[in-house]
């Protein structure tokens, strides 16, 4: 398996270079000059713009800019923000822990609640609980997240006065509860439905019948034999979902005032802060690569028939 992991890691190098180059080119080809825009509609000062561009290295040809950026990356230098003049690594360093906290919170919620509800629904297929779950998950899928966010804010913060309407302190888990639940609820619905279908299908399979016929206790049949096989599609989904959560959620972050990666990327895109956008996307690419590797390795844990050599 060690060789497999090494091979996967080596494969990720060209993916990494390609992704940074692509994003770099995209940012470069967007219309709008970020330095010029600092003056807005006021009188502009061409001499000052030229001086600032020279200091930031933005007057160099594109390939040279990319080369400088790429070399910098290996020295841990993510570049400098145009407007604020702060190092990009510092800016990302502020936003990323917030997003990681929120994402893990939402992810834990999705996984625990989603799988248990899904298993329950699957075991009671076509009974009242299952029908109720179908309705509930359809509702979650069809309601846009901003509606859910505002409704939750209105009900829990203003009517019931249980929670603060927005995040005051991104380290307090009480504050993050509402955004995490809202953020996780869409995935929750998918996880419930995936688990349920998978469980229902596998319940009818031969190996389960054998297990029951062997006289294994019901707990072991469900907990080990049934769950393990049924979770493969769920794990695939959860893996990419974790990546998406870590990429930030612009809308939910906006509603609940979470100063995370989503907002950062959004602002940076609008301000044409190329180095910030490329820096974050680079990190996200790494996160996705890592998560997909973990998911692939987890397959082997869940299904003994899968082996990596």
């Amino acid at each position: 398996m060690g060789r497999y992991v090494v091979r996967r890691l080596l494969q990720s190098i060209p993916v990494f270079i390609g992704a940074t180059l692509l994003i770099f080119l995209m940012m470069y080809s967007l219309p709008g000059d970020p330095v010029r825009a600092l003056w807005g509609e006021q009188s502009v000062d061409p001499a000052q713009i030229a001086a600032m561009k020279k200091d930031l290295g933005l007057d160099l040809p594109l390939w040279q800019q990319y080369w400088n950026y790429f070399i910098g990356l290996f020295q841990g230098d993510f570049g400098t923000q145009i407007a604020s003049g702060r190092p990009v690594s510092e800016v990302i360093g502020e936003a990323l822990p917030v997003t990681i906290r929120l994402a893990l919170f939402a992810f834990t919620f999705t996984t625990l609640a989603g799988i248990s509800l899904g298993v329950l629904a699957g075991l009671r297929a076509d009974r009242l609980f299952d029908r109720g779950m179908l309705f509930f998950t359809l509702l979650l899928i069809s309601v846009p997240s901003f509606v859910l966010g505002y409704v939750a804010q209105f009900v829990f913060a203003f009517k019931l006065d249980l929670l603060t309407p927005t995040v005051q302190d991104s380290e307090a888990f009480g504050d993050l509860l509402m955004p995490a639940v809202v953020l996780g609820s869409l995935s929750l619905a998918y996880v419930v439905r995936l688990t349920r279908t998978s469980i229902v299908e596998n319940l009818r399979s031969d190996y389960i019948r054998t297990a029951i016929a062997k006289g294994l206790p019901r707990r072991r049949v469900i907990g080990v034999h049934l769950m393990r096989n049924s979770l493969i599609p769920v794990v695939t989904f959860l893996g990419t979902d974790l990546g998406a959560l870590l990429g930030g959620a612009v809308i939910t972050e906006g509603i609940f005032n979470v100063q995370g990666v989503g907002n950062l990327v959004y602002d940076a895109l609008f301000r044409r802060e190329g180095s910030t956008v490329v820096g974050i996307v680079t990190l996200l690419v790494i996160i996705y690569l890592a998560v997909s590797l973990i998911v692939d390795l987890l397959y082997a844990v869940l299904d003994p028939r899968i082996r990596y050599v």
Partner: protein
Amino acid sequence: MRGARSAKWVAGAIVVAMAATACGGDSGDDKKSASGKPEGYVSIEVGEPQNAPLPSDTNESNGSYIVKALFTQLLEFDDKGEIVYLNAESVETEDSKTWTVKLKDGWTFHNGEKVTAQSYVDTWNFAANVKNNQKNSFWFSDIKGYEDVHPEKGDPKAEEMSGLKVVDDLTFTVELSEPVPYFEYKLGYTTWAPLPSVAFDDPKKFGEKPIGNGPYKFEKWNHNKLFQVAKYDKYKGEDSAKNEGIQFKNYSTPEAAYQELLSGNVDMVRQIGAKDLPKYKQDLGDRAIEQPYAAVQSIVPAFYSKPFKDVDPKVLQGLSMAIDRETIAKTVMNGTREAATSFTPPQVQGNQDLDIPSLKFDAKKAKELVEEGGGVPGNKIWIQFNADGGHKEWVTAVCENIRQNTGVECIPDSKPDFQTDLDLRDANKVKGMYRGGWVADYPLNVNFMRELYHSKAEANSGRFNNKEIDALMEKGDHAKTLEESIKLYQEAEQVMAEEMPAFPIFNYKINAGYGEDVENVNVDWHGDLVVSEVTTK
């Protein structure tokens, strides 16, 4: 199962590692909760400043709130646009070319350094130097010797502007390269505030913990969350703080800030999001603020574009007349704008009741005028705007007006964001007209004309070029007194009413609100809440 077991171990290790990163993030940040507000402080929704709050490098509203708290310049303006001296004892001139500034005695920076004439001269030389990359450097371009420190190309030839001379500790003179009768008014902008001598050693480091001469001293800055300042007890100015300190809190959206206002976690919000505009007055009662300020929203023809090249002014008058400003302001904009009645807003000196027919809605006459003037080539115009600024609704309404009332096809030309919009304007690629806005730099009518419609002005992106108007403005710039200058500009405005270099549409209004814990919340001529006057209950 061999593979499976080691995979299990890998997965376990990764989970542990992730938990560790989450914890690692915890200890790095400031532990104190952002909502913990010290006694007597007031809090206001003001986002993360674009860059470190140096007066000469701040030209956006978040930063300027903070600069205003930390720094004090020579003078400011009251609600009527009259000068109020702050750090200056007097500013005098005989020929509008050489200005003598006397400072008040006893002023100190927050680190104890005395505010002297030398502080001002050093700061201005620093700010004007092209090498220091200060965004407001062009503000110093009237001073003699500016070209030496800020050449159009290449490195500066000198470190100091020859026009600045220290007379004694509290007096200095400013010689301009040409007389500017309204120079004193320009000095009201915070960019002219002084910096202590420590600032020049390492401006970047200084910007993280700025030391000013203003009513508040720096306390802490948690990037993207909070900027906190405390009252400076030795402050000598008239605008000294009435509260113990200010927390400037960053919110990702106006909507989120508004929720915080309702639940009492922030004392003031400067803007109300579109979602809450229809109901904020009911929510807040007399704690809702709606007040016009000195800014004008216009639609500007690009005089190089196909529809408007060599256009007959009558066509422009007609098109402008076809717009029902009152109704759009009231309905589409929810009363957040006021219909414009001249090229200048009422808050500035020299604003006159122009009684321009072309700014008054008259559907019938509009059509006649457009036809009389020969119409528009192709019978089609475009209005370019940036989609990220909330302009879509009213631009669409304006276009609807023009189409219905004059028969000229009008197309809202949406650009994804402000940057793209500006790019096209700079490159002379606007297809017909564009949306323009101007907020007063200083409360004089001059500011709304000189920078926008003089043929050589940098912000004249419509490339309007009229010799008569140019001449009147130049005459105004060389007038002996301020009054005369204002008057000549008023004459220029009269001509503009005929030529229509732009269609003024709205004057801006601020929509803000404050919470139950504070009082004395006022708005200045510039549309900013006067935070230093706010008191806690």
